[in-house]
């Protein structure tokens, strides 16, 4: 009996390793949980903190050179159509003439676009790539962060319910 038990030890260890390695494969090393969740928006150069007060803001970090942003653009256009959110665009490491062509060609979902040519504002937000999307509540706190392009399903299943909740909040 003891012998059988001992013989099984390597097998158990091996399956444990397999389980962890499999988990590692499914884990996307680029998604890192935001530590800013629930915290107030960091002070951004050129934006007054009261800017975010009394409205729910969707902050989208994008760039005209970013292909994934082009992919999620129709989703942002749809979101803008609902007119329930203040859509703020952060134009990451881009050129003014290129982004205006981009927004003319694909449509402009943003109420306002802030240029961040050197990526400084992005760093103060903990952004490390495009696109990233934040939801900011009426008190100016970051409530959600999405890394990577928004799919219609992301919007329908995750962001939209949260937006409804944030709008209801006082």
């Amino acid at each position, binding site marked *: 009996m003891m012998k059988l038990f001992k013989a099984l030890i390597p097998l158990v260890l091996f399956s444990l390793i397999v389980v962890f390695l499999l988990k590692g494969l499914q884990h996307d090393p*680029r998604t*890192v949980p935001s*530590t800013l969740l629930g915290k107030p928006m960091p002070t951004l150069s050129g934006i007054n903190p009261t800017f975010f007060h009394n409205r729910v803001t969707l902050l989208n970090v994008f760039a005209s050179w970013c292909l994934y942003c082009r992919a999620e653009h129709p989703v942002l256009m749809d979101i803008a159509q609902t007119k329930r959110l203040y859509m703020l665009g952060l134009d990451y490491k881009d050129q003014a003439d290129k982004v205006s062509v981009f927004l003319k060609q694909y449509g402009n979902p943003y109420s306002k676009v802030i240029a961040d040519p050197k*990526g400084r504002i992005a760093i103060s937000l903990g952004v*490390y*790539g495009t696109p990233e999307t934040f939801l900011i509540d009426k008190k100016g706190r970051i409530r959600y962060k999405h890394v990577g392009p928004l799919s219609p399903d992301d919007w329908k299943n995750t962001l939209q319910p949260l937006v409804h909740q944030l709008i209801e909040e006082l």
Partner: protein
Amino acid sequence: MRFFIIVTILLSVFSGMVLAKDRYPFTSVTQQRQFEQLTNEMRCMVCQNESLADSNSGFAEDMRSKIYKMVKEGRSDQQIVQYMTKRYGYFVSFNPPFYRETYVLWLAPLLLLVIAVFIGRSVHKKYRGR
């Protein structure tokens, strides 16, 4: 010939370091050291296992210039690390503090060592008699 090759290799390696120094000039040696230490201790978030000092990515460049700015402003190591971990989490640091989220990371090697010693001893015991 061999000497020539070695010198060429060394020059190409060190030229990068000289360039980095030119980009981020310091008047104080302490600040220079602080900057070098901080950029070596922090992870480039978009690369796999590369420090900010080693990476050539645009993101690492931005982070370096942010750290440079803060060092020049006379902020302490702790303040700068705190600024970065507040935004990017403990993942950004190659030397994370011992904390609720990180204790597994710190204790795992010790645990593995204990297990290894245990296994080694039992194997040793088994074969000593022969």
